């Protein structure tokens, strides 16, 4: 029997932190607090997921500034 398994990533946006100039692309965009999650799938059905990284992401170029758990928690509460 063939077992179809794999992983699927997705980004969950937690909060918009206002306008910011991205150091990578130089565009003025919303500074977004986000978490990238990876789901393990069995026959295309998500079984469990874990967080790959948390940080600030630029909506124009997709570059991450990775944050520590403490920094992420503080920013999401402010």
């Amino acid at each position: 029997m063939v077992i179809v398994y794999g992983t699927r990533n997705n980004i969950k946006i937690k909060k918009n932190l206002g306008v910011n100039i991205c150091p990578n692309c130089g565009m003025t965009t919303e500074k977004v607090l986000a978490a990238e999650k990876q789901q393990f799938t069995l026959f295309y059905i998500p079984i469990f997921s874990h967080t790959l990284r948390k940080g600030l992401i630029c909506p124009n170029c997709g570059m991450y500034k990775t944050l520590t758990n403490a920094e992420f928690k503080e920013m999401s509460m402010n």
Partner: protein
Amino acid sequence: MITAKKSKAWIVLIVLGVFFLLLGILVGDEALGVMMVLAIVCLVIGLIVMAVSSKNYKKKSAWIAEANADGTIDRINNSISNGSATYFKSLKLALTSTELVENSNTPFIIKYEDIANVYRSNIREGKYDYTYQYIRIDLKNGQTVYVATVTRARVPAEFGNAIGTIKSHLNAEGGF
């Protein structure tokens, strides 16, 4: 070098197909069916790869001939040979002193003077890409071009070097 190259991958598949075919005939009986399926799969994929690579080769040869009507490709290849231009093999990208050449199956040339902004991007056409990373080029006419597609998990050192080289040329142009 900016040249049209013939892919040889199809030869391996055809040889593998013939190998499975002969192995099936030699072993016979129960193995024959499995070997036949493997042989047919290899031969069919081999033929598809051959047709696609031949089409790409013809298309690229035609593009090179057209772009070289005024000697542009010869000039770029000479610049790569004498070291005044850099060729990034893993990115299929050539950077001369005045232009960028995408050396893929769908090649094109962009002049630095037409570029408004350049940076690495994980987003392509508005969609976040979990697998690949690109060099995004925003042109002054509002168009966006993506070059140097690399796997995010294995970004070669050439990737950062290429962005740095393009930026230094844009700085030299004075418009960045």
